[in-house]
């Protein structure tokens, strides 16, 4: 971890609180949902984190409450470092958008809504992005089944073929 990153984390922790963790040399900051918007503004305008590398979520159902962690990876080209920020969110809660600071967050947030069902307040275009518009459920939640279809072998081939749709010419 570079000195600059250490100082940044220290300064951010003073201002926004939260816990600091580390694994394999990558630091992470765990924050409350309401501070993500001022944090992203501070990172972009004061600390020189020009772009957002990634924005994703993890579902910890049924072990943890709140069940979702939203994970931000802020990157800096000038200081050559990356900072991970985690924000726990409960099911049904919303999160403020950071797509005004980091434009690339727009589609990432849409994807999280599509895949996990976490909504973002103030997002300009909160629609599904990958799945069809009328799809039910959010596929990457842990309580959503994989949708496995039985594999055909010679002993059950005919039975499965009966259930499959057969299109006409």
């Amino acid at each position, binding site marked *: 971890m570079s000195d600059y990153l250490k100082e940044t984390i220290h300064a951010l922790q003073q201002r926004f609180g939260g816990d600091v963790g580390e*694994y*394999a040399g*990558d630091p992470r900051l765990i924050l409350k949902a309401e501070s993500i918007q001022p944090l992203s503004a501070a990172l972009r305008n004061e600390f020189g984190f*020009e*772009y*957002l*590398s*990634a924005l*994703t979520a*993890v*579902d910890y159902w049924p072990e943890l409450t709140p069940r979702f962690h939203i*994970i931000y*990876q802020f990157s800096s*080209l000038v200081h*050559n470092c*990356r900072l*991970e920020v985690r924000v726990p969110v409960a099911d049904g809660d919303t999160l403020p958008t950071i797509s005004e600071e*980091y*434009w*690339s967050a*727009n*589609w*990432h947030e849409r*994807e999280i809504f599509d*895949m996990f069902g976490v909504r973002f307040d103030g997002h*300009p*275009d909160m*629609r*599904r*992005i*990958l*799945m*069809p*518009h*009328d799809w039910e459920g959010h*596929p*990457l939640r842990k309580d*959503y089944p*994989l*949708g*496995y279809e039985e594999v055909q072998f010679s002993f059950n081939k005919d039975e499965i073929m009966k259930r499959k*749709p057969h*299109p006409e010419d």
Partner: protein
Amino acid sequence: MAQIQEVTVDEIKHLVSERALEGETMLLNMGPQHPSTHGVLRLLLELDGEEIINCIPDIGFLHTGIEKNMEAKTYIKAAVMTDRLDYLNTMGNNLVYCMAIEKLVGLDVPERAQAIRVIMTELQRIASHLVWLGTHALDLAAMSVFLYAFREREMILDIMEMISGQRMMTTYFRPGGLWRDVPQEWEAHVREFVKIFPERVAQYERLLTHNPLFKDRTVGIGVISAEDALRWGLTGPTLRGSGPALDLRKLRPYCGYEQYDFDVPTHTDGDVYARYLVRIQEFHESLKIIRQALDNLPSGPVSSNNRKFVPPPRSELGVSMEALIHHFKLWTEGFLAPKESVYMPVESPRGELGVFLEGDGGPKPYRVYWRTPSFVNLQALPYVSKGHYVADLVAIIGSFDIVLGDTDR
């Protein structure tokens, strides 16, 4: 079966101008079946005559559920899915996935494996850029470049087939090293390719670089400034065409890239032509890296000796009980990874390709997230294409070098 959903104007009225609601401008559908969208990308265009007022991308037509499906497989078995994400950069996808696992469990990779990984990913970068060059030129009505580019790409595919048995979906990199060592004739083939390729690049350049028709279609089209490009999260050659020298191989070297001497080509114009020039120069930089890696290719093992994560070689199975147990355990249950998460970015031909990998102490990944460069780069398309003609949109899409498998995952 589901019906096609017609998008009503009501649904997207926050994305189009007021003139569209009054019927003054035209809404036109481009894709998902269109020769120039490089796959199944759908663009909803709001047009005033030929001019693009708004461009609304609709993706997900190739959504494969790879992230969810990888959660249902062990770490090694999930590796076959990584090839099929960005199918022009299969080796690179294997690389980043294996490196994420190595980072998660703390596994070392021998030097020979590192060097072969570098050579193969750089060859893959050239192959990917060749497909880009061929299709981009084809979109701009230069058919012959496509035929030449695929001629050279076949040479790289032959090398890949030689080492792995497959032309595209190799899964050659495994956690802890490589699947097996390269065959003897491999080095001669790579050297042959490295020898003839500069002349071939010169051929492409003779066809395109100073071609007035090509320049008319590309110079000054799709300009994006460095600051905006970073704000849109653009990476790779698409960003380097605007100025910032963001190349993870240089900034945060992995896989021993710090040993090699190479440049990061950049241009400041930020238009389609600048992005073209950056990629053409990257051919030469990749060749430089391959040459250096080949000259200093270390000997030794190609995969880690840590039997908790890497299966023992086939020859040991007959003589060692322990090897047999490890083999059985690794291929049935798989190895266990700690309850932690890592994020591993590398430089793919399209930009920053990152894997967020989280383990839960078991043999299967708890969450795999792919930060794919095409997904992020494509976001900037509406911003860049605004005010251009429809014909220029084709050039802009080509210059972003998107792969829809990478976008939709």
